[in-house]
């Protein structure tokens, strides 16, 4: 157990990523407000980004931009950063689209709460 925890401590960014992921998905799944769901999605995705970047990082590394003079220290792995640039764009797109959907839902239901919406819908169905 101690060894396990020691290893977890060494891998603290991954651990933080896992916790953030858990909080994010909990927000998505348990909060009924649509904004909260959206924020949860964003937290979750940034947790994954964190994991990726941590995977490419190294303690003695430097910024992966070529410096003619500073070639003694190693560069960090540039690939995860490149991937996560794409990832950020993706999460921006999803957020924008989800916001648009929220606006449209609000226009109809007058609320941004999923539970209220289904209540209203069932009420409408009963009438």
């Amino acid at each position, binding site marked *: 157990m101690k060894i396990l925890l020691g*290893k*977890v401590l060494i*891998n603290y960014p991954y651990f933080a990523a896992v916790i953030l992921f858990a909080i994010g998905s909990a927000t998505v799944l348990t909060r009924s407000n649509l904004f909260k769901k959206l924020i949860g999605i964003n937290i979750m995705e940034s947790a994954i980004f964190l994991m990726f970047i*941590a*995977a490419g990082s190294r303690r003695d590394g430097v910024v992966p931009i070529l410096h003619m003079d500073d070639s003694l220290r*190693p560069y960090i792995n540039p*690939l995860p950063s490149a991937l996560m*640039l794409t990832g950020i*764009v993706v999460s921006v797109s999803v957020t*924008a689209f989800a916001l648009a959907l929220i606006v449209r839902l609000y226009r109809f239901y007058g609320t941004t709460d999923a539970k209220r919406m289904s209540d209203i819908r069932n009420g409408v169905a009963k009438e």
Partner: protein
Amino acid sequence: MGKYLRLAFILILALLTGYGVLVTVAELPPYGADTNLTYNQVSERYINGALEDTGVPNMVTAIVLDYRAYDTMFETIVLFTAVIAVLITLKGAQEEGDRK
């Protein structure tokens, strides 16, 4: 009763997942070490060959816009898709009789 059962089920599931995740995290290659498995021929080429290959000193840009330009093409397409989706969602989507 059903509520407690459900709670217990969720709790057990969460504990199991948590333990699994903990073990996985502990098992991953140590963070920040230079022995990481990601430092292989792939990143080697990106770090040492970027300038020669692409003429770009910023390796991230070299990867984004040259080595993996295909991904970036789809990245811009994601944005494009999102814009079109937003427009189709908000413009003229109301039907008559909608209430506010």
